[in-house]
């Protein structure tokens, strides 16, 4: 029998990962906005940022809350749990890198964000699949 881990524990980790990731990315976005990097295009910049993070963050938090309320002791494969945490971390790191790496590309931030949305969107889809698999893969001990 493969090693397993409590779902609630993984979910707590995911909440932490997504909260920290969101806070870091949000801070950078806020700083760039205040400094006028998006001057005249603020709405467009935030329109890119919010859908990049918020949907998955919301799912992670709401799932964690519902799990806590239900006092669910179900368990999941530790590989799946680790994979969900790793995928979330990598994705958030990529979003943060996107916010910080555009000065090196020779393009403006919005131009770069639009380009990165192509592959970030794909990664977000894969990440959503992993998280769905994680939730669907819950099993009793």
């Amino acid at each position, binding site marked *: 029998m493969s090693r397993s881990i409590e779902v609630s524990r993984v979910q707590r980790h995911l909440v932490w990962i997504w909260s920290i990731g969101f806070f870091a990315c949000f801070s950078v976005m806020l700083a*760039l906005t205040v400094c*006028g990097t998006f001057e*005249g295009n603020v709405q467009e910049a935030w329109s890119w940022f919010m859908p990049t993070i918020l949907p998955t963050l919301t799912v992670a938090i709401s799932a964690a809350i519902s799990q806590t309320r239900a006092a669910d002791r179900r368990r999941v494969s530790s590989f799946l749990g680790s994979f969900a945490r790793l995928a979330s971390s990598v994705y958030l790191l990529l979003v943060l890198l996107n916010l910080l790496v*555009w*000065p090196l590309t020779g393009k403006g931030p919005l131009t770069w964000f639009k380009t990165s949305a192509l592959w970030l969107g794909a990664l977000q889809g894969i990440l959503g699949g992993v998280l769905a698999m994680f939730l669907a893969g819950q099993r009793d001990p």
Partner: protein
Amino acid sequence: MALLDMRELDATWAGPPRADECLALSRASAVFLLLVACSGSGAQPALSASGVLEPSVAQPCPSLPARTGSGPKYPNGLWLYGCESRAPSTPMPQFDWPPPPWTAHHTLAPAATAQETLGDVFLRVRSMLRHADLLDAGLFAIGDDGFAAVTRVESIGDDGRPRVDTGRFAFDPDGNIQRKFSLKNYLDILFNRSPGRFRLFAILVTPSVVAPNANSTITWAQVHRTRGAAQLPSSLASAKVAPGTSVTVLVYEFLKPTPDSAPAVLTESQLSAQQHLTTAGLLPESPAP
């Protein structure tokens, strides 16, 4: 020279051209040039001081009479007709008139007398441009009695001085300044601390009143698309300075507010026209009081 058409006569030669056809005979590059006068057409081929043939009027001559017989053989056997069909020569590009609204302007003291030609004034303008290291300015005609010298767009700092950290002309067509990598440069771009600031000068020599055309605007794309001539045509250079001709410098300052936006011309600047001119090197810096 490149404006002239060549025609070989050989077998159709019927003696030398008539006197009214011959304006000048010159030898250049070991080739005899026969300039056929185009009396009545207004075409007047001219030889510059350096001996270079400069057709002054770009319009076709009337058709020449046919000749028969054999003519003298010259070393290369070619007769070159100087003005028979010198069109199509490229016309001098015209400066948009009235000019689009500028950021600042400065009228220089009248620098020309009635005895001077536009070519004389151009030499002084060129001297200013040389001093500012902006010799590659493009030239445009303003009507038939004036000209404009428009400098290349340069990248400047907030104080109006050409940027030395990145290079005066080191930016791409979108106005993105090419910077070497350093933490400071990276943070400057990231937090928009050093947005692109650019400038060009249009030095106008014209007797016309210089007033902005409120219905037009100068765009960044237009700046990069428009190219002026490299030299004044002899017709313009030899024209006498018209009464009331002044030398006015228009300053067009562009600001690229964010890395994503195209530079746009400013209607107001924190720098005066005088400051722009001195920091660019077009005028000497005034001594400190």
